[in-house]
């Protein structure tokens, strides 16, 4: 690796909501790509294997820790989805003005949390 000068790193910048949205997009994406897809595969494999295998799967995923992981994953999904929609807006060249960019970032964070609450409210109150 070439010994080039490095650009200023995290500690030098004043934190703003856009930075949080940016790193959350990467963190939630990486989390879903590993844990989320692992559970998706387990779910499909358990269903394809039969009732006994599904029983094992449901036992783990239906436990309090399993539900907590699922809540985390649904939040990761809704956050990543909101953040991804923000990316589409930025891709067309809109939303770079400081105030609008800040507002958009707060909306993304709020939407991720609110959609997660809405989803689990429907599941638990059904």
């Amino acid at each position, binding site marked *: 690796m070439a010994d080039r000068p490095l650009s200023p790193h995290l500690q030098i910048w004043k934190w703003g909501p856009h930075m949080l949205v940016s790193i959350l997009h990467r963190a939630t994406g990486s989390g879903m790509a590993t844990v989320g*897809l692992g559970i*998706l595969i387990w779910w499909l*494999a358990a269903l394809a294997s039969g*009732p006994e295998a599904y*029983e094992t799967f449901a036992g783990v995923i239906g436990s309090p820790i399993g539900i907590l992981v699922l809540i985390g994953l649904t939040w990761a999904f809704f956050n990543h*989805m909101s953040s991804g929609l923000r990316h589409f807006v930025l891709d067309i060249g809109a939303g770079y003005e400081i105030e609008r960019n800040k507002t958009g970032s707060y909306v993304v964070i709020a939407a991720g949390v609110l959609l997660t609450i809405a989803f689990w409210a429907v599941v638990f109150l059904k």
Partner: protein
Amino acid sequence: MGKETTLERYGSKTTAIGRVRGLGSAHGGAHHWLVQRLTAIGNLVLMTFLVVSMALLPAYDYAAMAGWVSQPLVATALALLVISVFWHARLGLQVVIEDYVHTSGNKFAALAALNFVAIGGGVFALVCIARLAFAGAA
């Protein structure tokens, strides 16, 4: 004229685009960028279907789940979802690896492993869906 190479026509300085092509940690990217967006749209549609279905399904036991997945339209949507999501995840993790793994040998190994896991996992998921779909409702 037509048989001249770029080098013969413009000399060794080449074009502006030719000088920047292949630079950066990824050595390319327009196609990656576009496919990441296309699969994002696929994910948006198909994950909305999955999440809304999951929220509204009456039960989560084996009979309900297997019966749901084995319906032709549901199995089709889930198969498309697996393709779109695994592809998108593969593209995303590729960027993460390119950003944080700097030694070229390690980077190559990590990207190779990522491809094997993503394609292997995706195909396995498709086989599972196919088995449920072709077996019919349990």
